């Protein structure tokens, strides 16, 4: 069985890699398998995690006992029926005449996401980032190394200049334009770093697949 799984994984890996030559039936077969299996996989995982694990177990809690044999089963949470009802309303999209009802759960999702994100993003993306930028440049007790001082100055100047670049209500001219230009340099550096980082992560995946083919499958790498 293990031997079969190894050959199957190698067959599928080579099938996907064959796309580098051109679109071909082998690749299309692997792609079709990937689409079908991954849709089925996530469907099942979401069903057991959310419908069973969160809804069913929440409404009908499993019986639990402590070491002394006393029942410590959680109280049923009937509010979860609201979530299930909204979920069923989502399926109304399939009924042409009353498809507009599916907007209600959608509105619930949009409203709750907006409400949660407004506070969370304000706190994590704005306040904490600003807090992290405004630090003593020379260290709390003037004890920072030259390396750290340069790093602190670069972070403070770069963040400020980057934000100036994103401020489009004023024309980018003069000192303001110069600062925005510095901001662009920092942003370009960030994009370059992100690009390099992404390439390396893909490369490590590729190395992993090559290691599988040449090592696990063909046994050429010990």
């Amino acid at each position, binding site marked *: 069985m293990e031997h079969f*799984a190894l050959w*199957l*994984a190698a067959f599928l890996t080579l099938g*996907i*890699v064959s796309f*580098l030559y051109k679109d071909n039936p082998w690749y299309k077969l*692997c792609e*079709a*398998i*990937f689409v*079908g*299996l991954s*849709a*089925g*996989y996530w*469907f*099942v995982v979401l*069903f*057991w*995690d*959310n*419908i069973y694990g969160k809804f069913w177990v*929440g409404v009908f809690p499993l019986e639990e006992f402590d070491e002394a044999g006393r029942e410590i089963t959680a109280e049923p949470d009937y509010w*979860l029926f*609201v*979530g299930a009802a*909204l*979920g*069923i309303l*989502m399926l109304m999209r*399939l009924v042409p005449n009353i498809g*507009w009802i599916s*907007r209600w759960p*959608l*509105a619930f999702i949009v*409203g*709750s996401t907006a*409400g949660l994100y*407004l506070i969370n*993003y304000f706190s*994590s993306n*704005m306040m904490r980032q600003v807090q992290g930028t405004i630090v003593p440049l020379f260290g709390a007790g003037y004890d920072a190394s030259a*390396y750290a001082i340069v790093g602190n100055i670069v*972070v403070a100047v*770069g963040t400020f*200049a*980057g*934000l100036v670049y994103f401020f489009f209500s004023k024309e980018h001219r003069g000192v303001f334009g110069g600062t925005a230009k510095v901001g662009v*340099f*920092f942003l370009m*550096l*960030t994009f*370059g*770093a992100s*690009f*390099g*980082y992404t*390439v390396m992560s*893909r490369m490590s995946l590729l190395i992993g*697949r090559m290691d599988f083919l040449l090592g696990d499958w063909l046994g050429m790498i010990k």
Partner: protein
Amino acid sequence: MRRQIPLFITFFVGTLLIFSVFIPPMETWGEDFTLFFDIIAVFAFFLGGGNLMRVHFNKLTRRKQDWTYSIVTLAGFFFMLVLGLLKIGNPGGIAASVTAEGSWFQTMFNDVLNPLQSTMYALLAFFVASASYRAFRAKNREATILLVAAFIILLGRTPFGMYLTAWVPESFSVLQIPNLAIWIMNSPNLAGQRAIIIGIGLGVVSMSMRLILGIERTYLGDDSG
């Protein structure tokens, strides 16, 4: 009414969750609503699965181009559904986790889905390399900075980068490519990231306000449906 009720729901739920942060007994409402959200998401996934079946059955019955692959897609989809929902071949039976090690469902993930997924992502390495070869030109200062930063990060994460600047004395160790890559990631990259993150935060806050106040209504679609 078709638009007013959803707009009211969005306003009510959004406002409620904002106020819940400031009122201690309501503090857990955010988590409760996230739970509802998770349950609704599964039904949305039902719609997605239904759509996948509809598209491929349609392709199959009308004998459209490459219809044979639709058989494979549908077979794979149903196969995983049967394996997972009925927990066939699960060593712990129906009570055990569907992703328990040794279950047929998890074996399919490990031996079939995982190789396919990682090879699919690994393939991007070739496309990124080919695209960057064609698009990367140090035409101006901005492009040069991007190119140099990417090059240093790439080199800094390989043994070759270390080998290349191993001769640099220890007192100037920051100029060794791996250390330079770390410095770029921790300082100028952090500055750029922060500017972007703060910008995203401002954007999300303003978009949330627009949604809650009913100014942004595109999510409702048109009234033809």
